[in-house]
């Protein structure tokens, strides 16, 4: 992405704002964290995995600290509350929440096991709900908030029901919050992706017994643009929407899959 494309950017537009990114060490999450730090926001990097390395990397880029690792499991209500307690010690809440964490899950129906279903949906849906519910409480108080969701198209076939349950919930959820809390200046946005060249999609391809590079090439060809969206491009879209001020630009669902599917 060249500098011309970023001409909309207001330098340090999110200075003083606190961003929480879940699923932050994955391909997309990592780029979002870097991008929001560049916008001047302080970024809490949440993942079940260790996230200190990414926080250190970001902090080295700037004179003042702009990132902190919060390695918590968002499928646990207890851990989500602990994470917010940690954030709230230094801040009045979270200003920008990016619900990006997801596991793909496996198994067609009815072969999918109950345990597999629960494991996936608790991360993908309940985890996002826990973070959204707590973050919204403080956004209401602060009269400012941005909540973003990484979604998936409903028309997708071959996607496990546990994964799609979580991802599709975001579309309605974003609409609900945008309407209910529009006077509290809380804006929402769902970015719907089909494929993105991330480590997760590579694991999915490998799990299907395919050669990874060939599989990625096939996915690139599926897109009518000839290539999948990249994590950097996803982060750029979120950055752009974080700057939207109008209540009319809220609750939106943007399908960015190169024309593969329809919502």
């Amino acid at each position, binding site marked *: 992405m060249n500098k011309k494309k970023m001409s909309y950017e207001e330098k340090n537009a999110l200075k003083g704002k606190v961003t929480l990114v879940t699923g932050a060490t994955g391909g997309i999450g990592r780029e979002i964290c870097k991008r929001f730090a560049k916008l001047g926001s302080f970024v809490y990097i949440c993942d079940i995995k260790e996230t200190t390395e990414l926080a250190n990397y970001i902090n080295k880029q700037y004179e003042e600290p702009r990132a902190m690792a919060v390695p918590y499991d968002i499928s646990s*209500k207890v851990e*989500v*509350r602990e994470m917010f307690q940690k954030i709230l010690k230094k801040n009045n809440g979270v200003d920008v929440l990016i619900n990006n964490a997801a596991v793909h899950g496996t198994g*067609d*129906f*009815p072969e999918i096991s*109950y345990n597999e*279903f*629960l494991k996936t*949906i608790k991360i993908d*849906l*309940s985890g996002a*709900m*826990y973070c*959204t*519910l*707590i973050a*919204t*409480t403080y956004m209401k108080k602060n009269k400012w908030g941005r909540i973003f969701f990484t979604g*998936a198209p*409903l*028309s*997708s*076939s*071959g*996607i*496990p*029901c*546990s*994964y*799609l*349950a*979580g*991802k*599709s*919930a*975001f*579309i*309605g*959820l974003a*609409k*609900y*919050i*945008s*309407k*209910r809390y529009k006077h509290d200046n809380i804006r929402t946005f769902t970015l719907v992706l089909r494929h993105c060249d991330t480590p997760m999609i590579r694991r999915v391809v490998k799990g299907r017994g395919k050669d990874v590079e060939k599989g990625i090439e096939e996915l690139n060809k599926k897109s009518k643009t000839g290539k999948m969206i990249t994590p950097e491009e996803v982060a750029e879209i979120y950055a752009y929407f974080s700057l939207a001020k109008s209540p009319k630009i809220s*609750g939106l669902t943007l399908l960015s899959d190169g024309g593969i599917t329809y919502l």
Partner: protein
Amino acid sequence: MKENLYKGQNCIIFGVNTFIGKIVSKYLAQNQVNLGLIDLVSHKDKEITNNLNTQNKTIYKTVKSGNEDNMINIVEEIHQKLGDINYLICFYYIDDLQHKIKPEDLTLETWDFLFQDWIVNYFLVLKAVVPLMIKVKKGRIVFFITTTGYTGEGEGEGEITLSGSIHECACSSGITGMMTSIAADIIPQGVSLNGIALGPNYKKDIDQIIWAVNLWLSGLGEYSCGQILRLY
């Protein structure tokens, strides 16, 4: 429909104690459908069975929420007593939900409760019933959700009427996604799964709901896969 397409068919109804559950059960009983009635609460048993007043077979069972083994055993028992299951209809306590859970409720506990009671139990009843339908390569399933999953809140697209909660909205739209994926998995095996989304004033037009149930059960929607009728 002049001919009684339902006579002698077997239907499992999950969430029979709900407002719509009772109405649809009564309608199907009048059309001589054998019923396997399942719910999470048992205190209304007599009311249900008296209300049905049917000469057809009727079995009533209470299931433990979120318990896979219990659900499988109950469905198997109904299957043994009624025979092949032709229909499955799933309801949730939408009425209670819209009265008891306030729109401003942002608690995590409410979410956990609703997530298990609604999404997880819909999944479990499907897990128990669908393999039986696949064996005989036929079956029609209807899920009930609410329109908040589409509109955020309100009666029509884009309108705000301040009904529903964030929890209801997430459950409804989450079930839509779950249903879409499962419907695509099972339609090649002769089993259809579609939905009906109820608006906040759904009690005012029961005929419309029966009409929608008929659409999905009668076979007219046989080629529809994971579609939802929105009844605003």
